[in-house]
């Protein structure tokens, strides 16, 4: 699916930023700064935090909708640069456009602190395309760097872009990481056209109507939305308004997404013939499913084929941002993007008598707003109608839809999540399932922690000199298995031992890995297993007759990893979002050296917060130390008011994981 305009261009903007040094000197534009920029530059500003890099003095969009469906957008901005860092984010202006869009002009200006003005225009601009290993898109950027983009100066830009959109929908994102003094959106509609607005993360604003069919919204003094690690996606925290236009001409109304049903109808029309099969597809399905009678196993054969054989490669030109390539074409090339893969799999499933539906989603939680039907989502998956004959007790990705029945949600683009499991980015979110009679939104659940398991069992023996020898067995499924598989599969087989080395190096000062193996690495529907053995000389610290043994010998430390989110001077403003609910268990047995007795054992610990639980226990029996630990995340969104409780919880976890057992030599 076509992505949000504001997000996918991050990489391109970085590319453009790097380009400016290559620019050959050029003649200046003759004109000086416009009055609106001068006026913005003369505003008195309140004091800002010393970290503030820039202030958006004016961010104005004038949208003129023409009766033929074309839209002209004039966008102008004025920014006062406060700190050198501002050059990174506000040192230039890059305007995206594709084959359906035309930029009439792009101009930039700088007003220096001494009042001197510099202007640049189209002939100074650079156009940059989009190069990627896995995507071809016809989108380009027209870009200009602001001259003398130095602290104290005011920079400004203005451009006009003409667009013939496939849908009449616009998102006005009026907040920014920098404070905004004035944000203005002006809409000019042809007679007979209508519009709606929906407001998010900001109170609804009523427009002024200075002229017939002209509407103006203006917001003053918006605070900056500072980026914090592991915060929810931008659209879930920053203020924005969705604006939809409804044409006078009923024939053009298909471009307006008034409801989720409308979007489904529009997309059904766009993809009507996409899923038609071909002799080649039929032959492949027959080949893959021959000898299999169980319908679920047949489905698995097809989804496995899709995951392992159809590469991700997107070719998006014009409407190709929305419309998939026909299934026979995807099959012939053996590559496609998300909607292509969904299309081919749907055609193949149809061959075995199983129906499926496109499901549009966004892989960022919080982007899809149930009350605001919108086509701007960034991913396409399949909702597979589960036949009555297939039980769903082992399928975690089944959603009961009142209209379509049991739907098994599957992402054919995800190469490692098996059929029946819902990847984390689809959980706790919404998906738009689209059928011939329209679309409707369904809620995708947060899977319980038990579906994302890591069970680590280990047997160690400790020598009197503190050396530790042992073997570890890890059993993983769900999210942990997917992440671990990705790590190993993206590592050359000859270098996979280094992954184990790196992992152990996180906890052990001194060790030698003596063996390591993986089980079910390619069997995505099976639990992934890791087995490794190592020797760690001097693991237990000796002091006189004492040995200090930390029983949590190995294991990821989610507690410490998450604690870094609290290591900033400023308190967090936004919630923390975990990827998924998960449970991780360690069960370690450590045979103690002969002649040593336990001098002191840590007490059992159990701590909880509303989003996670932790418990550990250490005991000794028959010369063997038994250590058990369970860490469980049960909720994925921690609101700001609960952050302190989560930090306290994590600190207790971290402290407990560092506790040592004291052993004393009983015999001289």
């Amino acid at each position, binding site marked *: 699916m076509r992505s949000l305009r504001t997000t996918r261009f991050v990489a391109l903007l970085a590319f453009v930023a790097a380009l400016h040094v290559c620019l050959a000197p050029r003649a200046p534009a003759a004109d000086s700064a416009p009055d609106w920029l001068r006026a913005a530059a003369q505003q008195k500003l309140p004091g800002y935090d010393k970290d503030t890099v820039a202030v958006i003095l004016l961010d104005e969009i004038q949208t003129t909708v023409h009766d033929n469906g074309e839209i002209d957008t004039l966008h102008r901005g004025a920014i006062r640069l406060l700190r050198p860092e501002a050059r990174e984010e506000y040192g230039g202006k890059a305007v995206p456009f594709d084959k359906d869009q035309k930029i009439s002009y792009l101009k930039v200006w700088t007003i220096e602190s001494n009042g001197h003005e510099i202007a640049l225009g189209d002939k100074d601009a650079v156009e940059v395309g989009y190069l990627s290993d896995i995507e071809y898109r016809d989108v380009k950027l027209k870009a200009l760097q602001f001259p003398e983009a130095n602290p104290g100066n005011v920079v400004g830009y203005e451009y006009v872009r003409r667009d013939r959109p496939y849908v009449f929908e616009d998102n006005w994102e009026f907040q920014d990481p920098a404070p905004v003094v004035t944000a203005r959106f002006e809409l000019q509609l042809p007679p007979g056209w209508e519009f709606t607005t929906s407001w998010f993360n900001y109170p609804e604003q009523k427009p002024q109507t200075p002229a017939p069919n002209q509407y103006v919204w203006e917001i003053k003094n918006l605070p900056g939305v500072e980026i914090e690690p592991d915060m929810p996606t931008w659209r879930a925290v920053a203020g924005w308004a969705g604006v939809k236009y409804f044409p006078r001409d009923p024939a053009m109304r298909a471009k307006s997404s008034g409801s989720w049903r409308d979007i489904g109808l529009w997309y059904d029309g766009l993809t009507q013939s996409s899923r038609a099969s071909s002799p080649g597809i039929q032959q492949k399905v027959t080949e893959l499913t021959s000898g299999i009678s169980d319908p679920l196993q047949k489905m698995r054969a097809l989804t496995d084929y899709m995951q392992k054989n159809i590469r991700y490669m997107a070719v998006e030109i014009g409407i190709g941002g929305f419309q998939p390539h026909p299934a026979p074409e995807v099959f012939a*090339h053996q590559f496609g993007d998300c909607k292509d893969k969904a299309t081919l799999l749907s055609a193949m499933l149809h061959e075995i008598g199983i129906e499926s539906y496109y499901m549009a989603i966004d892989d960022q939680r919080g982007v899809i707003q149930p009350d605001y039907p919108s086509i701007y989502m960034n991913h396409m998956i399949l909702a597979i109608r589960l036949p009555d004959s297939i039980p769903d007790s082992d399928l975690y990705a089944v959603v009961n839809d009142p209209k379509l029945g049991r739907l098994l949600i599957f992402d054919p683009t995800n190469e490692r999540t098996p059929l029946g499991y819902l990847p984390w980015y689809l959980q706790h979110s919404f998906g738009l399932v689209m059928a011939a009679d329209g679309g409707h939104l369904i809620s995708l659940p947060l899977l319980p922690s038990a579906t994302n398991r890591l069970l680590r069992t280990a047997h160690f023996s400790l020598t009197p000199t503190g050396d530790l020898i042992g073997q570890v067995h890890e059993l993983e499924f769900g999210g942990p298995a997917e992440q671990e598989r990705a790590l190993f599969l993206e590592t050359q087989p000859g270098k996979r031992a280094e992954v184990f080395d790196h992992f152990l190096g996180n906890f052990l000062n001194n060790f030698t890995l003596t063996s390591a193996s993986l089980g079910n690495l390619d069997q995505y529907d099976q639990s992934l297993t890791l087995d490794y053995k190592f020797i760690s000389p001097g693991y237990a610290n000796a002091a006189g007759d004492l040995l200090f043994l930390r029983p949590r010998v190995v294991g990821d430390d989610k507690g410490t990893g998450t604690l870094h989110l609290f290591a900033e001077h400023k308190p967090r403003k936004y919630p923390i979002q975990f990827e998924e609910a998960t449970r991780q268990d360690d069960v370690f047995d450590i045979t103690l050296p002969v002649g040593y007795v336990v001098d002191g054992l840590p007490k059992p610990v159990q701590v909880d917060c509303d989003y996670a639980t932790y418990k550990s226990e250490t005991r000794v029996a028959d010369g063997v130390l038994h250590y058990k630990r369970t860490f469980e995340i049960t909720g994925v969104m921690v609101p700001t008011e609960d952050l302190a409780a989560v930090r306290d919880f994590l600190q207790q976890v971290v402290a407990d994981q560092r506790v040592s057992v004291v052993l004393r030599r009983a015999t001289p």
Partner: protein
Amino acid sequence: MNRTRTTVYGVVVLIVAFAAFSRVSRADDWLPIPPEDIALKDNPKQPGADAMILYRQVVVNASKASVSGDSQEEYVRIKVFTQEGTKEGHVEIAFKKQLANVTYVIGRTIRPDGSIVKFDGQVLETTVERITGSKFLAKTFTLPDVQPGCIIEYKYSMQGQPNRVLDWGWGVSQPIYTREAHFTYIPYAGYGSDLRPIIRRHMLPVDAAPQTQANGSYVMVVHDIPGVVEEPLMPPARPLEARVEFVYQDPDAPSATDSSDKYWNHYGKKWDDELERFIDKKKALDQALSKVVSPGDAPEVKLRKIYARVQQIRNLDVEDYKMAKENKDENLKPNSSVEDVLNRGYAHNTQINYLFIGLARAAGFDATEIYIAPRSTDLFIPTANNVDQLTDELAWVHAGTQDYYLDPAAHYFPFGLLPWYETATSGIRVDKRGGAVVKTPNPLSSDATLIRKADLEVKENGDISGTVQVDFTGQRGALIREENRKEDETGRTKFFEDAIKGWLPAASVFEISKIANWDNNDQPVHVEGTLTIPSFTTTAQQRMLMPLEVFQMTQMQEFAPEKRVNVVYFPFPYEEIDDVKLRFPAGYKVEGVPPARNVNLGAVSCEISATAQGNSVEIKRHLTEKNLIYTKDEYPVVRRFFGTVKTNDNAQMVFENAQSAHN
């Protein structure tokens, strides 16, 4: 400071022309595929590879450059071993629209079962960049059904525009392993065809060399060329890459086939003439000198004063790129002599060094310019007779009884300290007689020292907190000043906080209270702040345990892999000197501290010791790394060294709560 020299006559283009010469077949007549290549599961000479080039053929034709343009044809056959290797199936061919065009592309995929899928998809054209008058494009295509075990192959040709004679090269090294490659170069044969290219070979196998053919072309066959493997602490990439260059040289310059003495004397005299012309303003220099030095100053004192004066000149080369409009507004005129530099107060790198040399000579010292190959990008091979290697420069002065190698144009480097990439390299020192090969001094570990002092208190709950002072000396300080020259105080504070937090456990909070000496290049950059590390100690009954070293090693990330492909290349030697004082809560007493340890391999060494008194302990640590290069064979030894250092750093101190112990 860096500067660019070039003898290239035009812009490199990629193009086609053929007929009697060798060429890549355009038709769909691919070379036969041996069954053993289909069955191949791994690269036996580089096990675990994602993919390898089985066969590559490159034909470069410059024979009709003046008529139809230069050309290049390429045929590549790749074996894919892993999922990661399937990325080779997406191909990008970059070219400049005004100078060349990709005229055809064909390709196919041979599946593991031997069946063949022809590429019949789109060849898409992407604008990489367009600026006025220039358009850089890329042809991209994706071969079908690429999966582990398959073989992919493709051919393409590029045709250039006429009337250009260009320098050319065969890029022999590729990102992945090449089993066999054939190269052909057909030189220019049109008007002025007495122009013959000079051939330069780099990093080729001993048995590989371009062979002249009867028709005037050159051919070469190579086998088993390893891919360029990226690793931490890599030497500069260019000297590692196997390549052949065909260079059409300035007819007025000495031939690259002449003796090296003749070659470098020619350039030495030429550059000396440039220097002499620029500094030929004795009166202006004498006047300037008289304001800077006193007659009674010792030679080095004079030199230091001159250095300081010259470093006050505004260096235009370290400023941001400015458009013509901005330069025009500032009325920056080009300098033609040291007098202009002195009067205007701005200059480029070379002009700053020229001014320094002029003033040094006016003070009675021998002084001249040295052109070098900076270690960051290349190695200087004098016998290669390639002036393009020398892209950097510095000044040499003989004052008193001592030789000085100085780069006053390197604004953040104080007197006596060269930027690391100008040390331990070689180049050409110019004089009236010509040029002589010289080597610049080796850097010292004491010229890049990190000094960390901490005064910390351990809390009952295991947190530690207190003050930390850090000095970044010499090379370290200069590089930090240079890297952060555009930052304001807030930006610098963030830089140091992030840098220091990189040595500390996750969740540590470090807040800067002072940054000193920022504008005084002669002094270390000094940073002070307050530190809190939550839950740093571990508990065991009534005891507290904590590692000797609070600051965590950063080197282990670079030495994590057990195996190494490239040599280990440190930009500069360095030292770390730590002095940490810890106070434990009242009632605690030392139960045991690890004994002092000293690991000394000569080139690298580290000693750490702890001295306890009552409930306090002082830890001192000194790590020294003196070498620039360690071979692959030495890698395990150095890796083991840092492993041992880490073990010693993490040896635990044990403190007992005396009161609890007696209850």
